[in-house]
């Protein structure tokens, strides 16, 4: 049972939520939240310590507080939240190295929980429909978050080799969805018109942000489970999700990487080439281990999680039509133009008079 829990990345949305949820557990003596910026939200009874995990000071915190459980949630998914790709990579990789080095040194650390991601599986047409925890990726993620996460997992494996007495739980979460969280994918589905790779309709799987918290809580209180996939049941295709969120899609042909570059440059959403191949081919997670070994039952399936997001999604800009209007979209656009023209004319008439 955990006595002193250290949470990294507590100032980020999921970290804060998890700290709040963990505060309700009275059996935990002390919760320490670490991040480089003060949390913008309540972190419950967790004590905030301003520290950078890239700095060896993290070791002193762990040693002084006699931390026995470390929850590593500070692997950043988007470069914008880290202030650029270089800084993102440094926080993710160097930060994890430092943290794990500190954990290895500190004899008090008995358990390491890492929030990892399904992005480590990559996404390609040669992948099986569902990834089990043992499935290796056919194409390794080549950039961004996915690549960082692969490296983070490698360091965690190294840690477990050097500290065989420590219990490891590494949860590979599907894309997190929910009304409050902001990820590359929620940004994407908030665009007024969704550019999709032409001729592809990927399968997506989501996990609700509340289920992320619940799964991490179980990882703290339950037995160690090694690597487990966490995802809501079922899949949604991109076109289905677009229809649910009421956004029309525009197929963008061939130049998949160019599409990403355009979106990125326009600052509309953060998209790496991995995320684009994800949008083309999708990915599914086998959650047998989640049920049988970890005994975790997500409250939201993929569809419900996405619907919860869709209902809170920002409204579409007035000019954009919804997917339902696809039937009359062409005509609609023409009529609207004509309407605007007539409106302008009558206003001019009024002004002149």
């Amino acid at each position, binding site marked *: 049972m955990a006595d002193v829990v250290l949470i990294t990345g507590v100032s980020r949305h999921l970290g804060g939520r998890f700290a709040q949820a963990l505060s309700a557990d009275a059996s935990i003596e002390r919760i320490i939240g670490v991040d480089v910026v003060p949390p913008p939200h309540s972190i419950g009874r967790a004590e905030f310590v301003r520290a950078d995990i890239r700095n060896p000071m993290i070791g002193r915190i762990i040693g002084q507080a006699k931390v026995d459980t470390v929850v590593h949630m500070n692997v950043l998914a988007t470069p914008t939240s880290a202030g650029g790709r270089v800084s993102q990579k440094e926080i993710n990789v160097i930060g994890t190295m430092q943290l794990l080095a500190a954990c290895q040194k500190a004899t008090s650390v008995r358990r390491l929980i890492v929030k990892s991601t399904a992005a480590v599986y990559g996404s390609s047409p040669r992948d099986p429909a569902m990834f089990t925890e043992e499935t290796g990726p056919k194409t390794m993620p080549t950039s961004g978050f996915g690549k960082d996460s692969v490296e983070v997992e490698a360091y965690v494996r190294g840690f477990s080799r050097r500290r065989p007495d420590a219990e490891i739980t590494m949860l590979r979460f599907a894309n997190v969805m929910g009304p409050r969280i902001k990820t590359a994918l929620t940004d994407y589905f908030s665009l007024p018109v969704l550019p999709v790779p032409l001729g592809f309709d*990927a399968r997506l799987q989501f996990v609700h942000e509340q289920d992320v918290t619940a799964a991490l809580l179980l990882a703290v209180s339950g037995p160690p489970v090694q690597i487990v996939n966490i995802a809501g049941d079922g899949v949604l295709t991109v076109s289905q999700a677009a229809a649910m969120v009421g956004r029309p899609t525009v197929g963008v042909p*061939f130049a998949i990487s160019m599409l990403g570059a355009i979106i990125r440059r326009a600052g509309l959403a953060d998209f790496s080439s991995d995320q684009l191949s994800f949008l083309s081919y999708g990915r599914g997670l086998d959650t047998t281990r989640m049920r049988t070994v970890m005994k975790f039952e997500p409250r939201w399936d993929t569809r419900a999680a996405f619907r919860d997001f869709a209902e809170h999604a920002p409204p579409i800009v007035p000019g954009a039509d919804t997917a*339902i209007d696809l039937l009359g979209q062409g005509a609609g656009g023409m009529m609207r133009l004509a309407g605007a023209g007539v409106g302008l004319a*009558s206003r*001019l008439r009024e002004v002149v008079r």
Partner: protein
Amino acid sequence: MPDTPRDAFATGAARAAGERRRRRTTPLVGAPPVPVVPGPLIGAAAPSAAQEPPTPGMPSGTGPASGTGPASGTGPASGSGPASATGADPTAEGAANAHTGRRRVPSRHRPVPRPTPVPTTETAVDVRPATRPAVRRLRAVPSPAQGSTTAENVSTTPSAGDELTARVAQARRDGATRALEGASAADHSGGAQQARGADWAGTAYRPQVVRDGEGPAISESLLAAALTQQELTPDIEDVIAAVIGVLRTLAAASGLGPDEVEAQVARTLAFLRRRLTGDYQVDEFGFDQDYTENFYLPVLRPLYKQWFRVEVRGVENIPAVGAGLIVANHSGTIALDAHMVQVAVHDAEARGRFLRLLGADLVFQTPLIGPLARKQGATLAANADAERLLSSGQLVGVFPEGFKGVGKPFSERYKLQRFGRGGFVSAAIRTGTPIIPCSIVGAEETYPLIGNAKMLARLFGAPYFPITPTWPWLGLLGLVPLPSKWIIEFGEPIPTAHYGSAGADDPMLVFDITDQVRETIQQTLYSLLMLRRSVFS
């Protein structure tokens, strides 16, 4: 009085469309319709309001609407006739536009005052019942809820133009969805009689509201949509009505009875609605049962029944329940045989089982084809996926020849190629699934492959580039398959359960069973060819 429900619906839709078309000719856009008011009032209000600052103009344009709309029984929409609208519209429009705060630009064209005389109450009242009694009556008695909606809309118009646009869009969406829902619901259950009995014109409309909850869904949605829908929005009901018309024509052309036509149209509408709202399930492999049942298989059936006249033998060998691995020969340049086997399995003894095909990775990395294949139930030909499907009790179909089979020259027709590495056998043994050999005759002659442009194939990254007697010489016409006569025979299942899952790791056993399956299919192919009188009959 219409004879069939189709006529009833069509006349109703046509009437609504006519009304919209008429209203569209009025110059008003963006503002709600203004009701008929006594002539002098409008005549006085309109010009002055146009010159005055927008705020005083507002009451003159909107006041009468909220006042007379629901109360006096003069529907707000009825006021948008040409006579009264000409006077009142610029007012409301000007008020709405001025409020949005856009810059006023002086126009070079000073608007010529309309020569139309200020309408008197008598003309407005006299003319309209004569020309459009039905529609007027339809709008004349809005339900309290609709009345209030209208009033609310009218009152908010000048103050929040954007909000109105959003609301109109929302209402239009709702209207469209409900129109689809209503149409399908009405068509489904007793919609025939009801629509026949319903007099869409005039008074009979209201009793119908009380009598049945289904029919009015259409009319209400039409009504609500017409009330909120302004001229600047497209007529989505028109589009839907057109779609319904096309569907009916198509269904009737395919030789269905009138009842079947209606049922089919209703099913199609419901299907379209589900597509537009994303309200369908996709399994973890991407299989979309809704799409397969309602679009993919129906589209293939004419090809299956009329074009290839597929004859199916040995349906009893397809397991009615539980897993089965159907192994078939692959041929025909483009893999039409895969689709035909899917139809054959689904329609076999009306069991409605779906054949889950295993495809090469090339299929899934090809745009358009990849996602379509997944929708139809295909997934990657890998042991992980095959075993996952088989252990969940699905019927799995596999073509072990792969591209070697489809891309072989016509001269080698009905000669089975190498059966891969026998991965399908090990998957079957590991899951204890029976293997059902399946022989397909007829696919070879659909596109006789007489040549292979290797350069072009390499250019496209394809395994082969087919040259047939018609392709590419005749362009797209060359894509029409030759109408060969097809026979599909499902053979005796070969049980694998008794080998135990350890048998999957015995290469000798796997090779033996692979050969057995291959030989069975080859022998059946020869005997089926003897059976066929000629290629095309």
